């Protein structure tokens, strides 16, 4: 059975699969944070995104590797992330579940009152 994903987990995995910004394509911590903020349309605390990445790695839904640093980073390395096959499966499962939930409902949703 596919892993249940929260909204932030989905946003982070989507940032890894389909980045919408140039920086997002680099898929390291800061780039993912910016990509997630772009997708959600609001500020997101760095700690929340890194905790999500850590959790996704622990679940086997994402993997990471170290890359070289740059002068603006004080030479510190970047950790690049990638989605795993299990991560893709979980993401597809989450989208299918959301589609089922919304099936037959036309937008905008109108109340009965």
């Amino acid at each position: 059975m596919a892993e249940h994903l929260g909204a932030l987990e989905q946003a982070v995995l989507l940032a890894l699969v389909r980045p919408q910004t140039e920086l997002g394509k680099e898929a390291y911590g800061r780039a993912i944070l910016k990509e997630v903020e772009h997708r959600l349309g609001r500020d997101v605390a760095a700690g929340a995104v890194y905790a999500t990445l850590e959790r996704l790695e622990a679940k086997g839904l994402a993997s990471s590797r170290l890359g070289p640093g740059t002068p603006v980073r004080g030479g510190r390395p970047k950790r690049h992330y990638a989605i795993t096959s299990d991560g893709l499966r979980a993401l597809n499962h989450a989208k299918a579940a959301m589609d089922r939930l919304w099936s037959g409902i036309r937008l905008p949703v109108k109340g009965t009152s």
Partner: protein
Amino acid sequence: MNWGEMALRLVVRGRDRDTISGDLLEEYREEILPKRGAIRAQLWYARQVVSFVHPVAWGLLIGAAAGTLQLLSTALDPLADDSGGVMLVIVASLLLLWMLASLGATTSSQRLRDVVISGIVIGAATMAVVHISSTLRVNLFLDQIQDRADWANLMARYRASDFHSLRAYANYEYLGSLPVLLALGAVAGGCCGALGGAIRRAAQPPQLTSK
């Protein structure tokens, strides 16, 4: 920015210390500092560091501060009674800190439930540390504090008990009160979190609008 770096290194796990501090430094230098200026950039960095602190760590930190104050005040004046005014200030400060810490630990969450859970964890962790410091205080200053007015009831219960050692009896009573204190901390922390979450929600503009 050395203070911030040091704080960050304390709250992130070893594997990610260099990469995360590099990410924050890059954002700080490329985006935040040029756009916001030095002071607001420092505040931004502090907010980022705060977002990495786990609710348990907040609770332990607040508990350690409260416990240290308690031990220091007892060392300075063991027989001083806690007046109503002082107790009110202490409790109000604790509740305010729990509310702020609950909000700090859930800066990205839109859900009230997350803030409440965070408050519960912070309150219980704080009370656990305060209880350890209270027990330490009893064992360090037993000879002096047994003459305190607010120890009269405990002394009466001790005399009525079968215990032959006041130290053993005081430790027994303190240990017995631990579950109640933890529950009290959890409930009060949860309420502080709920209050903070409600204030934050009221202060934020609505995310979605519909006609």
